[in-house]
């Protein structure tokens, strides 16, 4: 299995761990990734609020490169994934827009490349059962709340990914890793997203709801597949605790970190230990790291 | 096809002798090699007069309509196209399957008498097929011509080289598949003309019509017990020959077979004044395919295209 890899800007910055763990986990599973040459910004989150043409043109530039590469494209970042599939959807619907965009990016868009989220590659293309077979260090005793956020599942007619109200792809992978997937209702609730810069109060309230729900449903930690979700829940956790007078101390992992661990990879090689909320202590308590 | 003659003779003789059929409809020799004519056999002694070659165009199943009132079992020789005609009669409930014994005849094409006679006005002995070509072997020597150009039009697009069903098949099945796709190019060409030009074209055609009704009589879809052209009241059609009555006739005939025409082209073949009737039938077939998604190959259908509708049919009438 071989994919084109589109890291996007987050994975080079705040979500470095996601990049590390995705590459490491994929390598361990034997899935080859070939970084998209000369990739550029997908436009999230500002392009589509300022210029509709730009919002489609930016992802399309990357799609056109991927088409030349002739591989399906993995975009680990949920925002990148969402922008890429939205661009595809829009051009499918509107031939005139497609013509304009092609002019802008100076290339022809065929629509031959499939854009995939990490979860889809792992659960569907590779297969949950095969993941389970390759697990060497089952994450026994770890209770994980799978948090999908909004960008992977909405709008469903565009993302075509799992059930928008109650997705289960990540839960299946969590179970495959030997951990316990906690049933909880906040899988696709909004974390506040990029409102983090403008309205901290809203983000803190929304993220608090998510943390509280995970805790009250018995989770030890949360697994994510989106840099922004991870950042809001992890980076702001201290502030939230202060704001709402509560204590969570809940590690926020990327799903690829947990899987890598279960596959027997070194925690440090996955970026573990660099989160804001101490991420290794819980694992040591459970004798998983 | 000729080579199957002896098998045909044996078969017909046996069917008549063991009373499987009460009589049999096949071909006998006509004025010349290119003009075989229908042959109605009642006893096995007559099988020696049977005839078969690749000019046997007549659709014999239409004659079944003459034997409706009775209980005889009629044997009939049927090529793929004839079987479609028989299916038409069965679908229209005009003939009971139980009263027909079908002897299927695999066929790779029937030659157009008129075209061959242009090359060989008289004295043709036989036609020998050699791949893409045929040799017209005559008393005055051989002529080698491209096969496709001398076949009947229906044979070019024929989807059924073997009859779809039969009670008994003469010889082995032959390779199937049409020689050419029906692209309605002749219809399309006419559609491109200016309306006035088209009007003049059809006027020239209909003017010649003798109202002999041969086209109707040979047509498997024209199988009404009483034809509307033959009744006095209501007067669907005047008795005189005038251009407007001729046009009324051709319009009505075309509409009556719309969605029911099997595409055999017998109407055109038998027209003594060469009116291109298939240009009308094919126009309707083409539109029925495009508007209602019933391709010619699916006709006869269980419910005719004009006897049904879809809520989502095209609507241009507002």
């Amino acid at each position, binding site marked *: 299995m071989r994919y084109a890899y589109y890291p996007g800007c987050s994975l080079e910055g705040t979500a470095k761990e996601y990049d590390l763990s995705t590459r490491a986990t994929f390598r361990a599973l034997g899935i080859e990734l070939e970084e998209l040459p000369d990739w550029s910004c997908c436009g999230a989150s500002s392009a589509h609020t300022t210029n509709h043409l730009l919002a489609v043109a930016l992802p399309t530039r990357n799609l056109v490169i991927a088409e030349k590469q002739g591989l399906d494209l993995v975009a680990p970042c949920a925002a990148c994934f969402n922008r890429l599939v939205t661009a595809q959807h829009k051009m499918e619907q509107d031939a005139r827009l497609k013509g304009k965009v092609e002019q802008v990016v100076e290339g022809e868009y065929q629509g031959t490349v499939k854009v995939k989220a990490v979860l889809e590659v792992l659960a569907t293309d590779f297969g949950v059962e095969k993941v389970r077979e390759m697990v060497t260090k089952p994450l026994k005793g770890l209770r994980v709340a799978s948090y999908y956020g909004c960008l992977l599942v909405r709008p469903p007619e565009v993302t075509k990914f799992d*059930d928008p109200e*109650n997705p289960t792809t990540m839960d299946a992978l969590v179970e495959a890793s030997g951990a316990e997937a906690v049933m909880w209702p906040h899988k696709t609730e909004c974390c506040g997203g990029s409102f983090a810069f403008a309205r901290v109060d809203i983000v803190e309230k929304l993220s608090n709801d998510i943390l509280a729900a995970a805790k009250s449903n018995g989770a030890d930690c949360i697994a994510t597949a989106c840099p922004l979700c991870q950042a809001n829940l992890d980076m702001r956790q201290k502030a939230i605790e202060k704001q709402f007078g509560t204590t969570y101390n809940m590690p926020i992992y990327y799903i690829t970190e947990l899987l890598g661990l279960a596959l027997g990879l070194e925690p440090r090689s996955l970026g573990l230990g660099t989160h804001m909320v101490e991420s290794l202590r819980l694992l040591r308590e459970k004798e998983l790291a | 096809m000729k080579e199957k003659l002896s098998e045909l003779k044996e078969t017909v003789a046996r069917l008549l002798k063991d009373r499987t059929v009460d009589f049999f409809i096949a071909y006998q020799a006509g004025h010349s090699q290119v003009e075989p004519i229908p042959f109605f056999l009642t006893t096995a002694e007559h099988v020696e007069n049977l005839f078969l070659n690749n000019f046997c165009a007549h659709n014999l199943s239409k004659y079944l309509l003459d034997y409706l*009132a009775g209980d005889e079992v009629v044997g009939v020789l049927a090529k793929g196209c004839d079987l479609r005609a028989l299916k038409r009669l069965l679908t229209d*409930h005009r003939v009971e399957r139980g009263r027909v014994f079908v002897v299927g005849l695999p066929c790779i094409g029937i030659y157009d008498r008129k075209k061959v006679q242009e090359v060989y006005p008289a004295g043709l002995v036989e036609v020998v097929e050699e791949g893409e070509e045929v040799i017209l072997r005559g008393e005055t020597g051989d002529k080698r011509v491209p096969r496709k150009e001398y076949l009947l039009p229906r044979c070019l697009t024929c989807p059924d080289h073997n009859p779809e069903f039969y009670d008994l098949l003469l010889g082995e099945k032959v390779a199937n598949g049409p020689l050419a796709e029906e692209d309605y190019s002749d219809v399309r060409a006419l559609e491109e003309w200016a309306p006035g030009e088209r009007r003049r074209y059809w006027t020239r055609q209909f003017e010649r019509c003798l109202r002999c009704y041969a086209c109707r009589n040979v047509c498997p879809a024209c199988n009404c017990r009483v034809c*509307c052209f033959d*009744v006095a*009241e209501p007067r*669907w059609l005047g008795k005189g020959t005038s251009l407007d009555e001729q046009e009324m006739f051709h319009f009505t005939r075309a509409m009556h077979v719309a969605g029911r025409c099997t595409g055999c082209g017998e109407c055109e073949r038998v027209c003594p004044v060469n009116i291109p009737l298939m240009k009308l039938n094919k126009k309707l077939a083409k539109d029925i395919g495009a508007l209602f998604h019933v391709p010619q190959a699916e006709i006869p259908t269980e419910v005719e295209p004009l006897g049904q509708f879809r809520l989502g049919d095209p609507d241009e009438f507002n």
Partner: protein
Amino acid sequence: MCWCGSNIASTVDLDRVQKAVEKLTNVVHVEQNKYTCSEPGQAQIVAGIREHNLDRVVVAACSPRMHEKTFQRTVAKAGLNPYLLEIANIREHCSWVHTSVEEATPKAIDLLRAAVAKVIRNTPLTTSTIPVEKRALVIGGGIAGIQAALDIADAGHQVVLVEKEPTIGGRMAQLDKTFPTLDCSACILTPKMVDAAQHPKIRLLTYAEIEEVGGYIGNFEVTIRKKARSVNEDVCTGCGICWSKCPSKAPNEFDCGLGERKAIYIPFPQAVPNKPVIDRENCRYFTKGKCGVCKKVCPAGAVDFEQEDELLRERFGAIVVATGYELFDHSVYGEYGYGKYPDVITGLEFERLINASGPTGGKLKRPSDGKIPKTVVFVKCVGSRDEAKGFPYCSRTCCMYTAKQAILLREKMPEAEAYVFYMDVRTPGKGYEEFYTRATEEFGVNYLRGRVARIYPKGDQLVVRGEDTLVGAQVEIEADLVVLATAMVARRDAAELAQRIGFSYDQYHFFTEAHPKLRPVETNTAGVFLAGACQGPKDIPDTVAQASAAAVKVAMLFSRDELETNPMVATVDEGTCSGCEWCKPTCPYGAIDIKTIEERVGKRTVSRRVATVNTGLCQGCGACTVACRSGAMNLKGFTNEQILAEVEAICL
């Protein structure tokens, strides 16, 4: 020729028309009058017919849609067959739309010429009569069916009331109180159920379904499948020993599965008939082959394990369809938990939970843990007015029953809070708006205008998150119980039943009335009538009104011994018909059949297939005539001959 005062005469030069028409072949007498439809005008026609011994009449006047019937009666008075009359419409189609005499006059002449050409080809038509079997079939034993059956029976006619459940009563029996009066549903329904059961003219067939329907108005042939009850109804006394001793339990459908019943059971205490039925899927005797307790304890010896389905063939003159509705399945709403949260219930489930004879004895306990809810959220328009996941239509009853349920909650448990999420509050009914006002003002029900976006569990509660669009803010309510006002939808087998009987239904599978305003209880199949929610969402008052209307239609039909059929029906010339059957699929009424006739050909008799028209079913549209190539199929009153003659007369 009518002047219609100056309506016609001022625009059409009738003298010139008269001169032209007098010259037409077959025309022997032309006269004008000022108002032909008036008494003297009609008398003039009668006199003209008698004096000139006329056998055809053309009236040139207003539209035949106006006075054709009037003038048919006029010519009949003179002893002429009413169908030997034609109308030339020289008012609506001529004098009223053309301004100059020069325009209108030649056109009037053409119209008269066409009418004359047609009328000479008219033939006397007689309305044949078909006998009326004065027995009605009512399908569905809910309030609609019960009301219709009672009204028809009270009019003196036999009724068979067929219900597929073991008891009549339907949805209304499941309800607790009714709006806007808050009287108890059972208290007003059960007496009617008993009336229906005891009425000498009504025969109840419960636990029975319609298998097949043939025939036509006045003469339907219906096969009814009486499902095996495993209890001999004639012998059973309804003492109840069997169900008290039965060891097997199953969820009680009547309580929406919230309570349990036995395998041999009556759905609820006031069931009519009060005779149990064995649910064979859950009965130990039928599943495991041993038990038979009910049979052993039955003092009447009524339990019969060997009983089989019975097929009854009955004749009816009319059918009332009153099959009711189902509730929308809210499990398509992922945001409301896909129907998986036990404390998210439907309005009907709420009815059972507060009903004294319900599974909780009338104490509102929530399904998950039996706790008494302190905060209840009602969500309206679940599946209604939602094209994305439900249906675009309004279910009409939810606004009112939600108000009722909120009132009942607050009345029973004043300490409990009631919140209602709504899109609009629709209260068009007598006393309805006042009732809603009481809910908000007197009972303090909190109405929030907005959709609910999400329901999720939090602890043992449910968080209902929605929008209050009047305030412009998100609201979250931590509720103990959420009640969804789910849409009323057509029964899943509605389309199948409509096809079986032969009438039409709409895109939502509600049955279609013959005219949305003027014929609301008839179907397009004569003799089949509609009552209640099978035709569209309805509350009880509307349902009862429609049921009584349907009953009157039936009684009207039964007031005659014979029915006059529409004489303008299709007719087959058997000599011409080839029996090809292509006319059949064009008939919307299934009025065309194929029959075999025998005829002499030479010395022998042969049989031949021809089409035949059921004149009881044919409505005279003429679609079949065009499908017939040979012209064997013709339409009386609009024959091929007549229409061609009109064309030729106009083109002269």
